[in-house]
């Protein structure tokens, strides 16, 4: 395998991805990721120095609209989906002392 994924890399990616992986999951992730990256390295066979990255297939510009509220207040229904709520707001663990 050309791409060796270290424990540090997996831990760092876990932080970015906001995932807490078990020891077994980390080992599997190291193996899976290095295999995928080896495969993805195939793209380096292509000379793309003169090619612009294409994020959208059609040449689109930003689509603007007036910032006007068109939907009604659906707060109560939206909050019904929240795991915890309090006084019309999403409840989360204390974050500021």
């Amino acid at each position, binding site marked *: 395998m050309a791409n060796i994924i270290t424990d540090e*890399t*997996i831990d*760092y*990616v*876990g932080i*970015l*991805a*906001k*995932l*807490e*992986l078990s020891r077994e*999951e980390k080992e*599997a*992730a190291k193996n*899976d*990721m290095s*295999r*995928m*990256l080896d*495969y*993805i390295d*195939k*793209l*380096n*066979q*292509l000379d*793309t120095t003169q*090619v*612009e*990255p*294409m*994020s*959208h*297939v*059609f040449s*689109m510009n*930003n*689509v603007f*609209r007036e910032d006007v509220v068109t939907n009604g207040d*659906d707060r109560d*229904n*939206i909050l*019904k*989906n*929240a*795991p*915890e709520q309090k006084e019309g707001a*999403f409840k*989360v*663990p*204390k*974050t500021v002392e």
Partner: protein
Amino acid sequence: MSILKMTALELGRKIRSGDITVPEATQAVLERIRTQEPAIHAYVTVDEEGALKRAAQVQARIQDRTLVSPLAGVPVAVKDNLCTKGLRTTCGSNILYNFAPTYTAEAVLNLEKAGAVVLGKTNMDEFAMGSTTETSAFGVTRNPRNTDHVPGGSSGGSCAAVAAGECFYALGSDTGGSIRQPSAFCGVTGIKPTYGTVSRYGLIAYGSSLDQVGPVAKNVSDCAAVLEAIASYDKKDSTSIPRKDLDFTSALVDDVKGMKIGIPRDYLGEGLDHEVREGVMRAAGVLKDRGAVVEEFDLSLVEYAIPAYYVIASAEASSNLSRFDGVKYGLRAKEYEGLHQMYKKSRSEGFGPEVKRRIMLGSFVLSSGYYDAYYLKALRTKALIKQAFDKAFRDYDVILGPAAPTTAPKLGESLKDPLKMYLGDIYTVSVNLAGIPAMTVPCGTDSGGLPIGLQLMGDCFQEKKIIRAAYTFEQTDREGI
């Protein structure tokens, strides 16, 4: 003819003529669901009560002639990544196990305007990540053509529901082949439209630059009619495209004389099952006999589509799925210390292995130091793939090939080796990268009786050409059998 054997348009006609009522049709299909589900499990949620209530309302509006659409009163199944107001929408994931959206996806709203009766929500690979519907948190779906086999994925529930007569048509979504490959495996017809044709509003995002909603149905005519109903310009989707040519049923013409059809040699090489190859070449022969000009050509770059796709799709997924954090909806871990650990634990408990794998890969390719080498490289490759299609469509009206390299694999065989499973997407992913439309129509079976799917691809906005070719093939092949 029994109600369940009818196509969506046939049933629609019978409903409008008063021969069948909407509650009758809905009852018949709900009874079919009850008998089939123990063996197939195409649905995550069946909304029997809602469907019957809606059926009565639609019937009244058909009778007073305020609903006249060809699909009015016809029951439909909706993939579980399309939001339906008040009806549980899970995306096949534990993290959304109890999520009841407060609004309905635009594509589903368009169907409701046409008088559709929503039966329920179909099973899918978790967040549409998978090719077998085996990564669903709610159990596997089985292929109605042979229940030892997978239905394909990720729209496996939608395709199985259509194949098993558990709905008259369904909605799916296609990010890398998720309508076309399961349609092939289940022997049904499905279209992935040009990017931007169907609004993505209310479609829970996987790879936003690749995702499109599309129909799955019993035949080409139904597919064209459903696409006509769901396609619309929508200000709520900033990638939606205003189009004036949405009359897709006008392309149901039984004639391909002079149509130029190209078969990429790169789609017929190593890895393609010989029976699938024979089925596809036989179909090409049928179109040639009907007067199409059919020839092989080199598309090029086919082998680079999968690595480019997995970089782009995973990158977008890692960003899109950051919204699932245990705050606003869905699962929250029971035990945690502080906000940050609540996020991490909720996500780790809520997501399955394939979703975590892609979020990890996506986070990696977007991280500083790797962004240029992987993410931008994949976007440059996408530009080259688009150019290759542009060049091909200067010579051909339609590109023809297989939808998948094999027929449906057995249950339990695919997830052991993710990379191998990804390689099964080789004939479908480049269509999403290029934004072009493509459809699958059944073209026979292999020696085991499993369906083979023919894939027809068109240039951007040229759905009508592939619908015409598919319709001609279907009409001719049906007479042939």
